[in-house]
Every structure is written in structure tokens, then in C-alpha cells.
């Protein structure tokens, strides 16, 4: 018992260390569209139920539940049709390949340890950071925010048969550096010299943790908890320009050496810190019901528009007035609670086949304030309906000896219905866009194939 307690303390300390050690944390396009057709079809209510590669994303503590190698590969395609004032704004789609693998648990003494990896590879670009002016109407939950690759590496321990804990690390890249130029005047004495410069760019890893807990008080009841911390990347692109003394035809320099320092930065790829509590029921071997409640802390959302300041110093400072540096307005988002419910029912079963029918619902209230002022961040209360089918081919290992379990194919269809909002601006002509009516829909469909080895 003492060893168990000690081991538990070590695990918790490890997870806690992870949480404390990283400045930002995990969230990604999978927050919006989910991972794996099975769980997407169930509304993403998988925190207490996921026991396959979906656990990597929904609750890494579930990774240790697998009894063999699971390999999943799939694809999804999410096509938004978002409208402002009844016109489609041409928002970018999100689509790509997902893959995941989890290993069968290894035993350390009386404990089981499992791990794996998952990846989402967008099929248009590895990542896209699109910093747009703060006042341009933008649907904050979609578009470029979902355009990034995700790689996630989970681990989990089964402390007791009824208790598992887990964590995951996802990795991304943040870029720093910038150009540095020296400008020279074309004048006598400068023959053969050119304006020159250098550009430096540094890519550093950004690591984001997730932590989970899974409890099985009995065979049919499952309770899960998952923490995902805030995800945010800061891009800083400072520009430094040095201008040699300017003679402007005179024999002595009329303008002394000058410097221009431009500090540009933008916060991007935000996803909120999340706390998810989930309950799962497995009833009679035919039915599984999952329910999740997520607190998403959108209050941490920072102004994602590019912001910067230019400082002139040296000789030209006397001629160029300081650039007014107005602070951009804060977005003032609110925390939200997202409920989700999912059902899976085994509709057909034979010695060779099983067919599952799934349905789910998720409600995501808008964290964005009504855009009556300077900002035009748009978001809507969103009803997310989903359903799907799963087909499991049993006893394939008898024919394909490389396999050690069923082949499972799942498909999903997800429909986001954005409730239409109308906003009267306090000052209708204080920006170029005026009063707004906005809403739309997003359709997401996909499939996954899971093999067990």
C-alpha cells in the first residue's frame, strides 16, 4: 500500500511538474472538430469512455485501458459556411489526416503503464498564422486558428484497476528573430558599399501538457477528468534598421546616424484552458452513454491582432514625429461551460460483424462579447449535432494473422449550427463595417480505420 501511495505521489508530482513547467498548454483544431470518428459522432463526450486512440486527445488516462496495440488512421473535412450580413465570407476549411497509436500496457510491479502518439496533419499547410486587423469582422472559433499540425504524446498509469492517471505532451513551434538592415547613402566615399542586412529566424519548441484521471467504480460506471491548459503562441518579429549618416550632397553629414526599431508582435493559435468532467455508462454491453461538462476559460483570450510600435532615434528623430502607439482594445471574452452528450448503440451483432450507431450533441456558448464597439470578434452560440456509424469486422485475426483484434471502420457527420446574432453598433460609423448580422454553419465529416495488433 505504501508503495502504491508513493507511486501515486510520484505520478501526480510528475503531472503537476508538467503543468507548472510549461508556459502554455494544449489546445488545437481537435478542440473544434474532435479526434476519431467514433468520439466525434458521440458529440465528443468521451472523457470517461475513451479507451482507444481517442483517449490520447480526450483523456490520456484512458490510454492504459487498451489491451493491445491500437492503430488508427483517418481523415476529416470541415467546411464552414459563415455569413456576415447574409454574405458568405469565404472562411478557410479545416481538413487533414489523423493518425494515432497506443501501445499495450506494460507492467511495472502491480502497475500498468501505457503510451502512444497521435498526430493531425492538415492537408493544406503545416500551420497558418493569420494576423488580421483588430476591427475586421472575424469568426474567432474558425479560420486560421484551426490551421496547424498537432502532435501529441500520451502516457498513463493504472494505479489501481479502478484508477488511472495520465498525461500528454503536444508540441508546436514558435518563431523568433527578425531582419536587421544597414542602409547606406549613395555618395562619394561609399563606392562599392551596399546597403546590407541579415535576417535571423529561430524556431523553438513550444510544449503543451494535458492531464487526465479515470475512475471505474464498477463495470458500468466510468468517471473521467481532463485538464488542458491554455494554448497560445507569441510571434515577435522585430525589425531594426540602421541608417548611416546622410550627407545629401553636402561635405559634412547633415543627418546623423539614425535607427529605426519596429517591435511587432502577435498572439496566435489561442485555445482556452479547459477543465472537463465526464461520466460514462456502459449498459448491458450494447449501449454506451457519455456526458461531459467542460469549463473553457476564454477569459484568457488576448488581442490577436498585430500590435507594434516604431521608435526613431538618432538623426532622423528630429524630422519624424513619434509614431502614436495606441493600445489595441482588449477582447473581453468570458469563460464558458460546454455540455456534451453522446450515445453509442450496438445495432447489429453476429459472429463476424458488429454495427454501431452513434449520436451526440454539444452546445458551445459564445465566449465573445457582443461586438458593439471597436473589436469585431464574432462568435455565436453553437449547437453541434453529430451522428455516425461504426462497423467492426470480428475474428479477422483468424485470417490475417498479423492482426490481433477486429478491424473497425467509423464514419461521422457533424453539423455546427451557429445561432444568428444581430448587433447594433454604439457608433455605427466608427468602423468600416457597421451593424452586423452573423451566423452560419459548419459541416464536418470524416472516417477512421482502427486496427489492433
Amino acid at each position, binding site marked *: 500500500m505504501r508503495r502504491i501511495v508513493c507511486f501515486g505521489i510520484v505520478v501526480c508530482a510528475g503531472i503537476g511538474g508538467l503543468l507548472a513547467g510549461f508556459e502554455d498548454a494544449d489546445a488545437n483544431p481537435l478542440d473544434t472538430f474532435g479526434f476519431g470518428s467514433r468520439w466525434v459522432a458521440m458529440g465528443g463526450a468521451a472523457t470517461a469512455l475513451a479507451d482507444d486512440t481517442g483517449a490520447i486527445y480526450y483523456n490520456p488516462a484512458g490510454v492504459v485501458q487498451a489491451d493491445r496495440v491500437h492503430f488508427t488512421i483517418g481523415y476529416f*473535412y470541415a467546411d464552414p459556411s459563415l455569413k456576415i450580413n447574409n454574405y*458568405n465570407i469565404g472562411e478557410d476549411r479545416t481538413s487533414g489526416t489523423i493518425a494515432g497509436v497506443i501501445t499495450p500496457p506494460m507492467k511495472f510491479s502491480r502497475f500498468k503503464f501505457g503510451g502512444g502518439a497521435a498526430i493531425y496533419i492538415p492537408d493544406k499547410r503545416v500551420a497558418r498564422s493569420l494576423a488580421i486587423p483588430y476591427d475586421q469582422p472575424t469568426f474567432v472559433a474558425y479560420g486560421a486558428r484551426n490551421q496547424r499540425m498537432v502532435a501529441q504524446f500520451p502516457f498513463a498509469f493504472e494505479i489501481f484497476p479502478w484508477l488511472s492517471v495520465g498525461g500528454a505532451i503536444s508540441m508546436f513551434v514558435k518563431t523568433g528573430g527578425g531582419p536587421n538592415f544597414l542602409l547606406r547613402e549613395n555618395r562619394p566615399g561609399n563606392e562599392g558599399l551596399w546597403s546590407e542586412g541579415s535576417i535571423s529566424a529561430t524556431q523553438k519548441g513550444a510544449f503543451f501538457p494535458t492531464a487526465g484521471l479515470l475512475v471505474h467504480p464498477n463495470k458500468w460506471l466510468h468517471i473521467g477528468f481532463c485538464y488542458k491548459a491554455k494554448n497560445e503562441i507569441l510571434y515577435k518579429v522585430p525589425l531594426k534598421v540602421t541608417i548611416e549618416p546622410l550627407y545629401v550632397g553636402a561635405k559634412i553629414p547633415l543627418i546623423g546616424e539614425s535607427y529605426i526599431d519596429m517591435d511587432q508582435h502577435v498572439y496566435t493559435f489561442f485555445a482556452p484552458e479547459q477543465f472537463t468532467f465526464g461520466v460514462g455508462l456502459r449498459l448491458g454491453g450494447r449501449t454506451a452513454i457519455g456526458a461531459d461538462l467542460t469549463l473553457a476559460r476564454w477569459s484568457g483570450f488576448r488581442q490577436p491582432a498585430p500590435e507594434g510600435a516604431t521608435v526613431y532615434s538618432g538623426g532622423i528623430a528630429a524630422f519624424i514625429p513619434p509614431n502614436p502607439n495606441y493600445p489595441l482594445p482588449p477582447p473581453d471574452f468570458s469563460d464558458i461551460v460546454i455540455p456534451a452528450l453522446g450515445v453509442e448503440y450496438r445495432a447489429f451483432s453476429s459472429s463476424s460483424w458488429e454495427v454501431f450507431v452513434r449520436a451526440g450533441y454539444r452546445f458551445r456558448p459564445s465566449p465573445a462579447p457582443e461586438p458593439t464597439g471597436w473589436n469585431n470578434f464574432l462568435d455565436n452560440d453553437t449547437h453541434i449535432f453529430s451522428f455516425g456509424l461504426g462497423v467492426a469486422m470480428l475474428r479477422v485475426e483468424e485470417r490475417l494473422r498479423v492482426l490481433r483484434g477486429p478491424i473497425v471502420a467509423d464514419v461521422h457527420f457533424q453539423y455546427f449550427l451557429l445561432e444568428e446574432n444581430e448587433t447594433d453598433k454604439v457608433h455605427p460609423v466608427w468602423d468600416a463595417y457597421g451593424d452586423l448580422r452573423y451566423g452560419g454553419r459548419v459541416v464536418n465529416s470524416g472516417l477512421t480505420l482502427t486496427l489492433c495488433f
Partner: protein
Amino acid sequence: MHSKGCGCFLSAVCLFALVASSCGYLGEKGKEPRGDVNQPVSGVGKFEKQDFYCGTQLVQPFLIEDKRSSSVISGEPWLLNDEGAIRVWWVARDIAAGTNTVLTAEIALSAGTECRSVDAALKNIREVRFVPSPSYLIDAPTVVKKDGHYLMWFSKGTWQGIGHAVSDDGLDWEILSENVLEPNQTWENGSVGSPSVLWVDPGLVRAGGVFRFRMWYEGNVFGRRAIGHAESTDGLEWIKTDASGAREPARGPAPGSVRPVLEATQNNWEFWNPGDPWGRVGQPCVIVHQSPTRPLFYMYYTGNIYGRIEPDAIAGVNLVLDCFAPCRGRDACMDASIGLASSEDGLTWDKAASFSEPNVIANEINPIMNEKFPVSLDPRKPEGSINVFCPNFIVDEAEPAVLEVVENQLFIMLFHQVDFMNLMEGASLPPEDPAVPSTFTGASGIGFSYVGNTSF
């Protein structure tokens, strides 16, 4: 059988995934959606001013060009959506002859070429006739179409009053009254003109009122020019009103307590410079814009308009010399621009943001139309003010006429542009653009500009 079925199943799933994935990789190649198409169009600037020739700046206006060899200056345009056709009336002022001619034409919009997203062409240009023949100059016409009839209000003479005429075709007009509105308020200081009239829907009539004709006009033309408001049931009998609820007859003796509804307040463009005690706004063009949620009045108007003339400057002042004088030397040279304000009731107006206002963090919306290049900046710009110009050069934009082309998500504006020193000569001529003919001289007349999405 089992193995075969398994293989087929696996193959089918893999094939589907491969095809779907390929579609994702190959589809939309070359496109980079940004979620910024069909962005809302609300008629707020900056309006994009069009040049006659692409690549050559400051040789506007594009649409009606005044020739240097002529003494005619074109201005005071008015736009009307005439059952789907865009129709314009404007005034050709012959400075030498001392006459005004009102003209009308249709404007055909089309997809632009080269530098223009929208192109415009005038067709069916015709001269307007009035009966009885007026003994005064007719200026600044505003035209409303109601029940198949054209109704015009105009400035009488040099801001002596506002007259009214009717027509069945927009060409032949019968003047019903030469004075439906006179200067009789304290703030008008003896001059009114430049009417802008709307026949509004019942929802835009003031609460409890029956006045569906609403007029905005300028007053105190030679002083602290401002914009007033009046309303009427028939277009002939008008009541002057203001935001405080004051109401007085529009002609004849009156107590004079009605206040203007819009005055100069924005330091960076409605005033000549921060030391200017007056400021001037005038020449309103009011339209109703149906936003996605409500109807709004939009007022396009001219700021820092030529107007403050000291008594000793009226006679014999040499404009050219004054204009080259140091800043703040004379008030005769000014650089007018066009601004925008909105209102829910037509009486209380909210101007577009301007940098010089306190607590405004970013946008400089007003003026929504000014010269492409700031021709000079006041080196003695006081702390906190921005873009205060020293009007040593005049490239006025004034007398706006705006029409919303709803089906094209487009607002078009015609405006009068005064060229460099009023010599009808482009400020940056001769251009290096080989497309510009050597005979081209115009930078004065009526310009064309637009804001919005421009798909045709």
C-alpha cells in the same frame, strides 16, 4: 470468404481515405482563403478616389472634367436611383458669364479595368430647363422621385434661400416656389443653401409626426457654417426643427431659437488649424442606409469648406498670394474634405471616428475623402493633433453626392474637386504616364469614388 471479405473491406476503406485525402491536398490549389471576402459594406470610407489615368496620381477627377481653357466649373452633383437607373444632376457654373446650367445624365457602372475595380460612364447628357425662367442662379439641386414625379429643391442665388420645382421627366421643371426655406434663424446669419431632401418611410418619421419630407441644409455660409434640419408634409411648407425639439417656420419672421443639427467639432479636418475658432461643415448629402438591423441616416458632408472670409479680404484679396503665404496667414485658402456622420433620428448625429478625439484608440475614419497625398503638413503641429495641414495647396473635395447600390454592395460618391489654386490644372502634372495625353489638363470637375465590394 471471410478473408476475401476482410480484404475487400480494408481495401475499400483505404481507397476512400486515399481519395478523400487527395481531394484535400489537391483541392483549391493556389487559393488561400482568408475569410475576408464579402466583408460588410456600410458606406464608411475611405472612399477610393478614381484617377483619369491609372498610375498617374492627382489628375482626378474621373468623370466630369473641367477644361482649363473653359471658365466652367462643374459641381454640386446629386445622385438618384431612378427605378434601377442611376441618374445624376449637376451644375455647370460659368464663372466668366455668371451663369449656372443644370445638367442631367445617367451613369452606367461596370466592372473596372486596370486600376479601377468599378468603372463609370456618363450617357444621355442633357440640359435641364426651368419655367418660369429664374432670374437668379439655381445651384445645388437635390432630387427626390415620388409617385412617378421628380421633386427638386435647390439653392436660390448665392445662398439666399431654398426653392422647389417639380418635373415629370427630370428635364423640364416647373418652379413652384423660389423660397420654401429662408434664413431666419440666429445661427444661419443670413444665408442658407445646399439642401438635401428625403421622402422617408413612415418608420423614419419623428415620433408622432406626419412630416415625411425631411431636409438638411447649410447655413451661415460666410461664417461658422453648420447644418440645419427642416421637415414638411408636402415639400412646400417646411418647419425648422432641431434635436432639442424647437420648431419654427422655415420662412418669414421667426424667433430664431432653432439650432443646427451638425456643427464643426473635429479638429483635424473640419477646422483649418487648431487655432481656427470657427470650423465649417456644410453641403450635406443625407441618405438612408438599411443596416442589417435598422435603418440609419447617413450624412456625407464637407468640412473645412471655403467660407470664412474676413471683411477686408472679400475685396481685392489675391488668392494665389494668400495661399502661398505662411500657414495661418489667411483664411482664404482652405482644404476641404468630406466626412460622414450617422443618426437614428436625423437630428442627433454621431460623427465617424477621428484621431483627434479623446479616447479614440485607432481609426481615423473622418475625413472619408480627401486628397490622396497630403500636400503639406504644418510643421508647427501642436502636441496631440495629427494631420493638421497647412493649406498652401488646394485640392478640395466637396459637395458630396452618395448613392448605395445595394445589389453590388457598393456605395458610390460623386464630389466636386477644386484643383490646384483653382486653375483647373493638375497638381502633379505633367505625369510620366505615357497614357496621359498631352492635352489633358483637368484636375477640376466632378470626381468618382466608391467603397465596397465591387463584384459585378
